[in-house]
């Protein structure tokens, strides 16, 4: 098997704060192959952004503490010099963010901002960068790019701005595109269009994609593999079929239960998981999900469950329940109507 594009090994990211050390990411490992789409799913605050911002080395907080390694194309990004890292950023790995309204600089035209990125990483002649920027705007589906290229971000709608961000990210043909909640701030119809666009461009540009979201529904269509994160750790990992049709972790069941689905009665549609995530400063002993887990039992309090494969190739989860117990209880949690009628 070929070497993976990206390999994150036992990554830990903490922040020193007045209240203590916040362990935002607490020992995460995963790999990503070339051209693969990886979904990272979890509630807000579970460490998704911090993980991928660390990969980009974009965390500027001076109180951050890192451990672990991030191997990209055989090089450890954590050991790269600032300048070497700048070459990677934007050119090899690009990132788009949640809020397209605030992610573009309001005082420059969108064309200027794309050209700035192109000129940073390429030796382009005058006019070349502009032509390329116009092409990119056309590729991301912005009508009349020859006019819109001289418009300022505030002259675009939210969805159009996210398209501009995508054009910006793809401008140097990156091998890895990180999309951090790219559709969260957008209307539902626009969300679908942006996801479709990412899917198509991924095919066209052949880059690998990490798609971060708090909504499992968003990755259902796009992702090859899915990581489920909770309180700074991965609690379940598997391919799309495994996560959607045979989810092993009670937290994943909860996330599946909160996907908006039209085939359910209205009242049952959006049931968020009850309770609050644990403190990242004083992590409770045992399973970090146990305070909210309806299935919790004695062992959950005493022992920290490890992420291991129990049901199939590449399908890992961190829960003490036996596979039989899980499958039996799962149906009651995710599809209570079905369980009731059965």
């Amino acid at each position, binding site marked *: 098997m070929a070497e993976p594009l990206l390999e994150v090994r036992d990554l830990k990211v903490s922040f020193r704060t007045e209240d203590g050390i916040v362990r935002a990411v607490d020992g995460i490992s995963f790999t990503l192959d070339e051209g693969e789409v990886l979904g990272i799913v979890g509630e807000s605050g579970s460490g998704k952004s911090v993980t991928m911002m660390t990969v980009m080395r974009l965390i500027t907080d001076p109180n951050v503490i890192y451990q672990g390694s991030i191997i990209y194309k055989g090089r450890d990004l954590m050991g790269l010099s600032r300048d070497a890292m700048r070459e990677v950023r934007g050119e090899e790995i690009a990132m788009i963010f949640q809020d397209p309204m605030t992610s573009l600089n309001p005082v420059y035209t969108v064309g200027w901002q794309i050209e700035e*990125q192109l000129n*940073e990483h390429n030796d382009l002649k005058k006019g070349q960068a502009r032509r390329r920027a116009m092409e990119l705007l056309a590729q991301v589906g912005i009508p009349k790019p020859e006019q819109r290229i001289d418009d300022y971000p505030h002259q675009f709608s939210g969805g159009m701005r996210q398209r501009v961000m995508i054009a910006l990210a793809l401008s140097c043909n990156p091998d890895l595109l990180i999309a951090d909640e790219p559709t969260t701030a957008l209307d539902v119809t626009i969300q679908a269009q942006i996801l479709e666009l990412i899917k198509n461009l991924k095919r066209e540009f052949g880059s690998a994609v990490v798609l971060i979201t708090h909504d499992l529904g968003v990755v259902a269509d796009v992702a090859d593999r899915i990581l489920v994160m909770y309180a700074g750790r991965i609690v379940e990992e598997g391919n799309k079929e495994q996560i959607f049709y045979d989810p092993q972790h009670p937290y994943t069941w909860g996330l599946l239960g909160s996907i908006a689905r039209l085939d359910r009665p209205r009242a049952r549609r959006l049931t968020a998981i009850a309770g609050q995530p644990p403190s990242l400063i004083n992590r409770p002993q045992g399973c970090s999900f146990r305070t909210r887990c309806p299935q919790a039992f004695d062992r959950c309090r005493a022992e920290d469950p490890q992420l291991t494969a129990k049901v199939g190739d590449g399908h890992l989860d961190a829960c003490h329940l036996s596979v039989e117990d899980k499958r039996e209880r799962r149906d009651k949690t995710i599809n209570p109507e079905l369980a009731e009628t059965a």
Partner: protein
Amino acid sequence: MLAFIVRRLLWMALVLFAISVLVFLIFFATPGVDPARQMAGRNPSAETIKSIKHEFGLDRSLPVRYGLMMKHMFITRDLISYGSHTRVIPEITSAAPVTLSLVFGAAIIWIVFSILFGVAAAVLRGTVFDPLLMILALIGISIPVFWLGEVVNLITQSRLHDSFLFSWVPPLGYTPLTQDPFMWFKQLIFPWLTLSVLYIGFYARVLRANLIETESEDYIRTARAKGLSERRVLFRHTLRTSMITFVSLFGLDFAVLVGGGALLTEVVFGLPGVGLLTFNSLTALDLPVIMTTVIYAAFFITLASALVDLVYAWLDPRVRLA
């Protein structure tokens, strides 16, 4: 753009008119003010007062008197001071270059140094230099300008004047730029530095706060994600958007100073500028001079606010000129 300029000019005319009427009315509503008596000298006869009143049009109705004053100010340009009996317009036109020289020079110094200190403090955040610079800035803000001016004079004009350091410093006063540029510069350098200290402190603090606020904006993160150098992120993105507040503050402070707000510096360094002129006319309740200096100041302030709006729209495309 043309519509903007026309609108602003009309607005300026309206403001100047309103201010002049207001000053005029305040003057005549002030008890104990009788210019004819002032002009007539000690123990004047009733005849003398009457003839003075007639000569200066003081026996006419208020609107007519206002009209006459405006006519003398703008059309015949021969408005006479009640106090010194000299023409007012030449007084203003000879005082304005002094004030403009003082304020322009000080402004250049304060822009350069406040940007330098503000950026340095923001970049060095987390080291001892940031609080050190900010304390320095606070001291600069707190020092009264007349005190600082006196200390500077004490050092450069008397105590250390004979040392090699300050022997080049000419006596206090003003020499026009056109007459002797080098002398102009030598006489103004200490007034410039003295006047700019307060503004350097204030603008450095404002800029630092703005830079730090901008630093946490999402588009700065985007700029870093693009792989730009820290220097480019700082100058092309963080500083560029932080200048918006800086520029609008600057326009108004500058206008107030040009309009006569640099009075204390002018007094301490013996510069016969607009501030001094205004101050003297106010203490003498000399209406023609008060009127002229107020209109002069209002002109610069409205002009500056129009310029600020222009620059603002250029710096921040979200602001549309309407």
